[in-house]
């Protein structure tokens, strides 16, 4: 996948940088960062067409689950693939995230290769 636009939604600057670092494996990838759900919605209404969203769950102002749910309700955004990346590793958390409409659920600490594989599969469809 070339020239993809990724939206990384994460309140931790360390994690944002780590995820962005992994995404640089995709040729000409553009990485847009947001610090919470509200910031993400602003970026989604911006000029860049987002190809994939990677979001944390636990964030201030608006959490990742609320963001997933709002994106899925929006006619213009509902088809964007979403990956949840979180420290919440319980099965019920995973089920809740996927039930809200996330396409994949990855528990931290993340393995870069696993993240790349998941993104490649979602963008190949």
């Amino acid at each position, binding site marked *: 996948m070339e020239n993809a636009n990724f939206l990384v939604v994460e309140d931790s600057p*360390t994690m944002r940088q*780590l995820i962005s670092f992994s995404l640089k494996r995709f040729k000409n990838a553009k990485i847009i960062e947001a610090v919470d759900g509200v910031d993400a919605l602003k970026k989604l209404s911006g000029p860049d067409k987002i190809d994939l969203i990677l979001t944390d769950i636990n964030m201030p102002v608006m959490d990742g689950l609320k963001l997933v749910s709002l994106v899925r309700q929006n006619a213009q955004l509902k088809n964007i693939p979403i990956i949840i990346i979180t420290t919440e*590793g319980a099965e019920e958390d995973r089920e809740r995230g996927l039930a809200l409409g996330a396409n994949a659920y990855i528990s931290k600490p993340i393995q870069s290769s696993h993240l790349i594989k998941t993104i490649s599969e979602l963008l190949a469809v």
Partner: protein
Amino acid sequence: MSEESKAEKFLELFNKGKEFTEELLRENQRLRYRLASAETEQKSGGSSEEVQKLRDQIAHLTEENKRIHERFSAIEEENKDFANRYIEIEEQNNNLANLYVASYQLHSTLDFREVIQIVQEIVINLIGAEAFAILLLDEKTNELKTIASEGDDVMPNIDQISIRLGDGVMGQVAKTGESYYINQDIDADSGAITIDKPLAAVPLKIKEHVIGLIAIYKLLQQKDSFSAVDYELFSLLAAHAATAIFSSKLYSQSERKLNTIQSFLDLLTTTS
């Protein structure tokens, strides 16, 4: 034509027919013989020369098949090696990326609280800890005290740890500068993890000078235990964290002193 010549003609014709019939019988005999020979040949699988030729061919093909099979197994083995090597390199890449990002973040600020916040983020997101404490050594009192923690619900009083240098597991880690790891599978369930005996304790040291330690009490649910690379990564991160904490502490101290001097100078200027 007379009757005599007619009889001669008939006799001649009869003799020719007889010869022809005899010739046919002989031909039939020959064909029968050839058919019988062909059938015998077919049953015995051809001539011995042909059989030998075919046997040689089979032996040659079997040999070639064996060689191809051996080559295939060797290539398959090589492929397995490459695949394992690829996985190892991927893992190394991942760790290098983690280390790069962590050290970049740790050294991106000189604000003490911010550095501690980054250390906490690293311990949660890269090490995968749910309950942990960052302790710094007070060199005046020789005591290790919690300056930041997570997971009070898992380990009560984690935010109020106070241990004398050399006392218990953590005191020893701070004194010797050697990391400590418990075997989680064996000890976690038996309740061996207490506030004084964490799952892991890694010293924060600059060269041989210990300034504190990071104690981990519980890993995230999805992380069963520390892997071999975790130990390495954890030690490297602790070394970066130590220098970042130390630098930011020195910076805030010098900032405080500078402010005091500036205030004193301001006071002198206004009074004179």
